[in-house]
């Protein structure tokens, strides 16, 4: 018998706020999570904007009285917090929310053995690695913290979440740059399908708004540098004036569950993971091929895996990073949707939350699940003057209420790695 996989819990720490509902509400309202970088002094940096998480201490546009501000002390004690980089902190917070939302807190051996974790990150503990390298140079090898390695390793997000919740099934981590979150959900769903687990806590996390992260992506010529004075306008996928992506941070985590398992315990079901497709460009380390072939083949593979006609896909959450690659992806989507391109709906939520790199695919899959729940496509904000002629509705500025049974989320990463997830409504 074919095992079906459904999403039964969602957790988010995003630039629009800590928590799924506050982030989704602000996304639908067309709010932007961007602002001037508050994490460090940006003098001499060509890019000074990012989508930071609003923090209770005032960073990232948050504050003690501002709704949705993230309070790390509610997640970890000071002692534990020193042992994790921020990407792990965000992953833990998102996983807590997702498991609470799913009402899944396994206690028996069997339930614990059948629940796994697969949370990835694009870069991992970049900030701690950079700081520790400086300490090594200044003070020598004897002053390196025993927590340096376990605080920065990418798979320690999965490790920490498993320890915290007693999840003893498969423990794994994906590292595929900006496709990480989508690959993690897709691969975790396959582990359930193949019978390795009944429940998987899956997603992606990133915390690269640190000096070396921003400087590194500036050097790749990937970041937006033209809107330092107007941060909320900086991320503008498909717009004529877009000039690079805006870095985001945070984590998205879902609880995936075998359908009968979820039904038997009366779990709330957001959507089914219908299909998952992967491909490689074999073209360039940072750029997609001009014909968008890699992305196209990932979408086709996902549709084939789902056993559906691409024309039945109601809404596509695109990779759409606000770079020159937007057009390449759009053409590939048009080709993929075929006749449906005439009435297709595609938006990029990176316009509001920036690019969460390894977290992006997971956060966007969560938005797709919510689009099915609430029957509304989130908007592409800042799309004032479309750079492309297309029959597809790119959902400029305002959310679009519509019938949504089937959605697809695209994620493409440096190195030419592509993933597409297709989610469907469960009646």
């Amino acid at each position, binding site marked *: 018998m074919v095992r079906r996989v459904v999403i039964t819990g969602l957790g988010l720490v995003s630039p629009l706020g800590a928590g799924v509902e506050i982030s989704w509400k602000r996304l639908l309202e067309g709010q932007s999570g961007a602002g001037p970088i508050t994490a460090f002094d940006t003098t001499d940096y060509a890019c000074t904007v990012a989508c930071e998480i609003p923090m209770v201490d005032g960073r990232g546009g948050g504050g003690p009285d501002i709704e949705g501000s993230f309070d790390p002390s509610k997640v970890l*004690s*000071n*002692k534990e917090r020193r042992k994790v980089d921020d990407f792990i902190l965000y992953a833990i917070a998102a996983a807590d929310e997702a498991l609470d939302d799913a009402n899944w807190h396994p206690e028996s051996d069997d339930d614990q053995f059948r629940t796994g974790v697969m949370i990835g990150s694009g870069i991992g503990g970049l900030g701690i690695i950079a700081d520790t390298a400086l300490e090594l140079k200044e003070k020598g090898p*004897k*002053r390196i*913290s*025993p*927590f340096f390695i*376990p605080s920065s390793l990418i798979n320690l997000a999965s490790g920490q979440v498993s320890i915290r919740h007693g999840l003893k099934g498969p423990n794994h981590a994906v590292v595929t740059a900006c496709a990480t979150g989508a690959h993690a959900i897709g691969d975790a769903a396959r582990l359930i399908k193949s019978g390795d687990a009944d429940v998987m806590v899956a997603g992606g996390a990133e915390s690269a708004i640190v000096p070396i992260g921003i400087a590194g992506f500036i050097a790749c010529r990937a970041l937006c540098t033209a809107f330092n004075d107007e941060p909320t306008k900086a991320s503008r996928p498909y717009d004529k004036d877009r000039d690079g992506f805006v870095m985001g941070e945070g984590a998205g985590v879902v609880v995936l569950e075998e359908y009968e398992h979820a039904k038997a315990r009366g779990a709330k079901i957001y959507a089914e993971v219908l299909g998952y497709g992967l491909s490689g460009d074999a073209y360039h380390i940072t750029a997609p091929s001009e014909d968008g072939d890699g992305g196209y083949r990932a979408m086709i593979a996902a549709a084939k895996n789902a056993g559906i006609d691409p024309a039945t896909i109601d809404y596509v959450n695109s990779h759409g990073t606000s770079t020159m690659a937007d057009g390449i992806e759009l053409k590939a989507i048009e080709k993929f949707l075929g006749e449906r391109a005439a009435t297709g709906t595609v938006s990029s939520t990176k316009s509001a939350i920036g690019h969460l790199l390894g977290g992006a695919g997971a956060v966007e899959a969560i938005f797709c699940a919510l689009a099915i729940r609430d029957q509304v496509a989130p908007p592409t904000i800042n799309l004032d003057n479309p750079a492309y002629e297309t029959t597809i509705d790119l959902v400029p500025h305002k959310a679009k209420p519509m019938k949504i049974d089937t959605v697809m989320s695209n994620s493409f990463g440096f190195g030419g790695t592509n993933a597409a997830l297709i989610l469907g409504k469960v009646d």
Partner: protein
Amino acid sequence: MSEVLERVRKIVIDHLDADPDKVTDKASFIDDLEADSLDIVELVMAFEEEFDIEIPDDSAEHILTVGDAVNYIQEKLAA
């Protein structure tokens, strides 16, 4: 209370998020203050920095309580 004890207590409270009342002379890092082996490595490094001394690994292995740390540091400073 000795000055060394006070400085040691401050480091322990800070690093382990420990309840100050529990950080007594006899308190065991692992049994009473919820430290693990890596916490102790970090604590020993903090003692080295605070008192500008070196604590070799084979000596660190015998530092199990707050009192052990204070005694070791006092001996080292007196030497």
